[in-house]
């Protein structure tokens, strides 16, 4: 009971069992059904992991949504309008994502403004700029992508119904887990979000910690933008807008404290999986998908309350 992901794990089990039993003949627990919710969870999950680390360090990033779209458009316009090969454009899109993260990080650290506001502004700036420049250059806000076999394999390979994005998600989770729970940098992430002054006093470069995490988040968002663009053979400025709130939601459901300083990567993974199960499970019930929002909202509310409780529990001596 003393672990941050306890609540999410329980909620996941209950929800999964609910759909498994309630939709017993519809194939939710089949290999294809499983691949379905994993696909959906994996793309969000790749972004949610750095967003989770960032939240543990005490910061928000709402600019992920527009970064996803921007990255897909960079690849689309580069390959389609300028006829450039795709790999350099992928590289460029990743660099752009990291630059957006760097700007967020610098702005937050230098101004001391809440990152919630700073990155909300960035979110609008980036999507506005993506649309504006796309229209200026190619007179479109979405455009097809000319892919190569190698890029198709790396970002959009499929085995049966399962996308390669699931493998990327697992990789991101392992990396996130390693960094957060085993490395010195991970210790600094917890310290930065747990008590900024104390961390600074102990010689932790708190500003560098935050900036690095913002860059990682921008990178992950761009990565998912590229992944979706190649999967759908097209870029679109509005890809990823759903993630703006989905990512922080699954992170909080996963047991990370909104105020920072506490949480785990396993929790984020479970929170994201829960999101995947709900969003796909609903289809198997035949209910209207509108219910997803209600479900998520209720879960988020419950999670915030549960997190506070778990935190207090963690602080009672054994």
């Amino acid at each position, binding site marked *: 009971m003393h672990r941050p992901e306890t609540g999410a794990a329980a909620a996941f089990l209950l929800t999964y069992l609910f759909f498994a039993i309630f939709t017993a003949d519809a194939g939710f627990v089949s290999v294809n059904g499983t691949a379905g919710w994993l696909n959906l969870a994996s793309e969000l999950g790749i972004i949610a992991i750095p967003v989770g680390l960032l939240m543990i360090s005490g910061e928000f990033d709402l600019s992920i949504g527009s970064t996803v779209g921007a990255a897909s458009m960079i690849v689309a316009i580069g390959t389609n309008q300028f006829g450039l090969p795709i790999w350099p454009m992928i590289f460029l899109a990743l660099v752009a994502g990291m630059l957006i993260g760097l700007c967020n990080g610098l702005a937050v650290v230098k101004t001391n403004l809440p990152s919630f506001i700073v990155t909300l502004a960035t979110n609008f700036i980036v999507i506005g700029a993506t649309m504006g420049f796309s229209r200026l250059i190619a007179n479109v806000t979405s455009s097809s992508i000319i892919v190569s076999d190698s890029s198709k394999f790396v970002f959009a390979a499929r085995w049966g119904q399962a996308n390669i994005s699931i493998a990327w998600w697992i990789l991101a989770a392992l990396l996130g887990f*390693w960094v957060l729970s*085993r*490395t*010195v940098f*991970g*210790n600094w992430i*917890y*310290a930065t979000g*747990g*008590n900024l*002054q*104390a*961390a600074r*006093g*102990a*010689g*932790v470069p708190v500003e560098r910690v935050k900036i690095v995490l913002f860059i990682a988040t921008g990178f992950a968002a761009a990565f998912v933008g590229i992944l979706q663009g190649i999967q759908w053979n097209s870029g679109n400025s509005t890809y990823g807008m759903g993630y703006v709130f989905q990512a922080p939601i699954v992170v909080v459901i996963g047991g990370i*404290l909104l105020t920072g*300083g*506490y949480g785990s990567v396993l929790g984020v993974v479970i929170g994201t999986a829960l999101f995947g199960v709900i969003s796909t499970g609903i289809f198997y019930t035949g209910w209207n998908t509108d219910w997803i929002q209600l479900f998520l909202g209720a879960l988020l509310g419950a999670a915030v309350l549960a997190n506070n409780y778990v*935190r207090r529990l*963690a*602080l*009672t*001596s*054994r």
Partner: protein
Amino acid sequence: MSNPLMELINVSKSFGSTDALKNVSMEVQPGKILCLLGDNGAGKSTLIKILSGYHPPSNGTVRLEGADTVFSGPREARQRGIATVHQDVGSIPLMSIGRNFFLGAEPTTGNWPFRRIDTSKANEIAVQQMERFGITRVKDGNQLVGTMSGGERQVLAIGRAMYFGAKVLILDEPTSALGVKEAAFVLKMMRIARENGAGIVFITHNARHAMAVGDSFCVLIQGEVAAQFKRGEKTREEVLNLMAGGEDMAALEDDLEQVD
């Protein structure tokens, strides 16, 4: 008497037109506890900030182990063995004891990219150090610091400073937020640190605590040294009167009683 670890010679500090410190001279001796007493606004915090490298003095000299020194910042002061433990201690409640203890100086094991925090070593040393200072209740370095009492956290912070080789230990009101028992514990710990040869600067409002452990005393009033004396040279009554700025403490206490 041995050579002082740290000296202030005619140090003044002004912020704009306020003179927070005026011509303050004092010595921190190894293996001794120097109590810094004074009312609110007397300049105690400013003095600590000069000792720990946050502020350079406006005038006067800081000497560390006999050499004139100007710190580039708190980091340099810390590296040169001056550790400050603030009242709020600066521990991180939702992190484990081991991780708190080694924050900023984490022991690692393995080679990159598999280099990781040596958690078992960190936990073991942290628990050992707490034990050395008399905390035996804590057995598991994985326990969150937030589960420890205020006094235990003070002990953790002081133990941490000592472990990392602090020569001068500056404690800013370490007992003021604690109950009687916890405060006694921290005072005992200060004695242990003293036996280990640290020079301790103990800031407090509480004359009783100061008299319990102090070897020498320095009373600040409005930025000036009002009195400097050794253990046993003054009674508690006299110290209280000095701290109240020369006003008769007994009279003040009478006033208080009338308020009740």
